């Protein structure tokens, strides 16, 4: 927490994964974590009230993919689709996102927080293509839902511990690279915001309706990144947002390894990744009209 001229702001950063202490506790590694937390707090110390209204939003690469995880990924889990409570349940093979949008759930990335050698039912993990170039291709399945939906398990059966039943869950949920640069996206925005990182939020995981709080964001005016803004919230629903993606970046990043997904009272470690993306229309909740 930083304090300057009576104003207090916080910044936080973390790293994680399925690795030994040694990989995290190298001096250069933990110093980078400290520097990043301090940088975020410093940026927020200079922030001004966020604008409000419907506008273009550029999401930065990496952790902002938590929005995809929450607002889209849960809707692609087998149980919600078998029970027909997901907005995607009758859309298999149909266009559900803009062209160029490909989303996978990948448990096979070495040492990542969401990776699994085998899932909690013993099924080897895999890279499951969920949406390919805008077309819905697969749901994530455990053995129960796969059998009832007459398909195969995707190695997505997970449980928090032995006290809990298995549910189909995400692993590392990733939007893959497109062809645009982040600079092109910023230049394409007359008035909007650039959201770099998110904190808490609320999501209805079956409908995909969400409210996310930005912990680091900047205004964009006339194609240029402006001042940092405070108190911006992004409001929308996943299925609609997927169709508003007009540019997909070429700078995909994995998150630093801090995500824990909650579903039915069970928390499991997950990862997310995405490149920068431009969303043409999104509601931003702020205090400056």
């Amino acid at each position, binding site marked *: *927490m*930083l*304090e*300057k001229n009576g104003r*207090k702001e916080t910044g936080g950063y973390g790293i*994680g*994964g*399925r*690795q*030994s*202490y*040694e990989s995290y*506790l190298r001096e250069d590694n*933990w*110093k980078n*974590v*400290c*520097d990043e*937390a*301090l940088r975020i707090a*410093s940026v927020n*110390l200079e922030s001004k009230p966020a604008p409000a209204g419907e506008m273009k939003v550029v999401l930065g690469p990496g952790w902002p993919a938590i929005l995809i995880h929450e607002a889209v990924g849960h809707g692609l889990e087998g149980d919600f689709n078998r029970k027909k409570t997901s907005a995607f349940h009758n859309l298999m093979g149909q266009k559900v996102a803009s062209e160029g949008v490909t989303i996978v759930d990948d*448990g*096979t*990335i*070495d*040492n*990542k*927080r969401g*990776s*699994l*050698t*085998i899932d*909690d*039912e*013993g*099924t*080897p*993990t895999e890279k499951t293509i969920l949406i390919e170039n805008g077309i819905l291709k697969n749901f994530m399945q455990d*053995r*129960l839902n796969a*059998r*009832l939906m007459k398909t195969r398990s995707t190695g997505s059966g997970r*449980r928090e*511990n*032995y*006290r*809990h*039943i*298995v549910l189909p869950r995400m692993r590392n949920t990733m939007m893959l690279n497109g062809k645009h640069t982040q600079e092109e996206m910023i230049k394409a925005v007359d008035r909007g915001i650039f959201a770099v990182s998110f904190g808490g939020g609320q999501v209805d995981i079956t409908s995909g309706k969400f409210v996310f709080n930005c912990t680091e964001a900047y205004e964009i005016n006339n194609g240029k990144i402006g001042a940092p803004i405070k108190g911006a919230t992004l409001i929308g629903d996943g299925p609609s947002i997927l169709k508003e993606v007009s540019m997909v970046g070429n700078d995909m990043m994995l998150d630093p390894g801090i995500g824990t997904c909650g579903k039915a009272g069970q928390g499991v*470690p997950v990862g997310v990744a995405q490149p920068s993306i431009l969303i043409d229309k999104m509601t931003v909740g702020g205090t400056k009209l």
Partner: protein
Amino acid sequence: MSNFFEKSDLSRSDAENIVSETLQKCDDGELYLENSKSESILLDDNKIKNSSYSSDLGFGFRAISDEIVAYSHSNEISKNSLKQSSESLKSTLKSTKGIYNHSIPKSNKKYYDNINPIEQKTLNEKIEILNKVNKYLRSKDNNIKASNSKFSWRTKVYRNNQIWRRNTN
């Protein structure tokens, strides 16, 4: 690697017999055995304000028929405890007519090492790192009014359908 039957009156063949007998008319199910350890240390405003360590051992026994799931779990790995769970599952699914299919694809691919990071450093070594982090942060900016840093680790070992693995996160 943990041996779940080492300190129990339940042998591996006992467990396999109980599981086979319980699931014979079900569509699916498994016995899931887990041993996990977790640790968390929080340094807040120059002091260790929270430290926790926990170790947990137990099983979850699941039987499935059509879309009905019967589940029983216990933190006691014993013959009696597993038999009680079996009775509970059988009474829930007494009219089932499924055919148990236990086939699961096999793979030798591993995406992380079987290590337990909690045992790699002593508590004092971990606290020393947290103090270094705190000192480094406070040296970077005079405007820092508060800082906290935290380690949190969890190791899980489980056995399921005769496959071993260890998860670290």
